[in-house]
């Protein structure tokens, strides 16, 4: 049987207390990793409905549970091949989607990873 802990505050004996909303709001809300060189094959994900192969080095992700606004949708990402790391950028932000592109020229990578956080709708 699964355990369940319901609490609004966590309190340490000496280090003070923490509202559990910090834990909930600070948790990762969406993530995925994908192999762009294999026609955008998803490797792992959470809260992702679909990925769109938008072109060389470009992947759009669509969320299942959108953020409360585009401004709340903050994400970091990285892309790498076996031995090279690539600088990526994100654009076309909405509350439920964004598109990645390689910062220095078009290139598909073996592994593109994204982590996103913010308040959900």
């Amino acid at each position, binding site marked *: 049987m699964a355990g369940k802990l319901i609490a609004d505050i966590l309190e340490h004996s000496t280090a003070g207390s923490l509202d559990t909303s910090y834990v909930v709001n600070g948790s990762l*809300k969406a993530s*995925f990793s994908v192999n*762009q*060189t294999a*026609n*955008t*094959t*998803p490797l792992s*994900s*959470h*809260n*992702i*409905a*679909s*990925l*769109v*192969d*938008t*072109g*060389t080095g470009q992947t*759009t992700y*669509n969320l*299942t*549970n*959108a953020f*409360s*606004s*585009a401004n*709340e949708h903050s994400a970091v990402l990285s892309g790498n091949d076996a031995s090279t790391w690539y600088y990526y950028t994100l654009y076309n932000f*909405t*509350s*439920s*989607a964004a598109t990645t592109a390689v910062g220095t020229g*078009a290139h*598909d990578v073996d592994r593109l990873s994204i982590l996103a956080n913010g308040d*959900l*709708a």
Partner: protein
Amino acid sequence: MQTPDFKGTPVFDRLCWAKENLEPHQSDYRVVYEDKLDECAKILVPDPNWLSCALHGGILPPVWVYHELAKDEATEGFTKHTRGYLLHETEPMPAMTEEQAIEYLILKDCPQSVVETWNEGNRPTMVICRKEQLPQTREWRNAWRISDKLAAA
């Protein structure tokens, strides 16, 4: 496995449950579409965890909920979603077949302009295919287009 009664449960919590309890399902289907004349064809790939939710049923909200939220976001002066409760409190979708799930995903994630006009031109601007039917290498990826040989339905 029986899905808990998720009506009223935040969608994010349902996804956490699904991640723990359902096996991801890799689809062989791909949706190819063209939404801009001067851009290459886009290829929509269903997420394996999302697809397992769709096949299992009782987890995902109806697609009209996403359309309502998109309408809100397109409204001038939009700052923040205030109808997020639609995602969480609407009766979840029952189990779908893989084909129904792909149709749902087209309605959710393909541009509305493509969904509404894909068969109105000389050739279709949206095609559902199997991944084996796509080019097997990424050569000239930014020049990929839907074949002129396909007739619109």
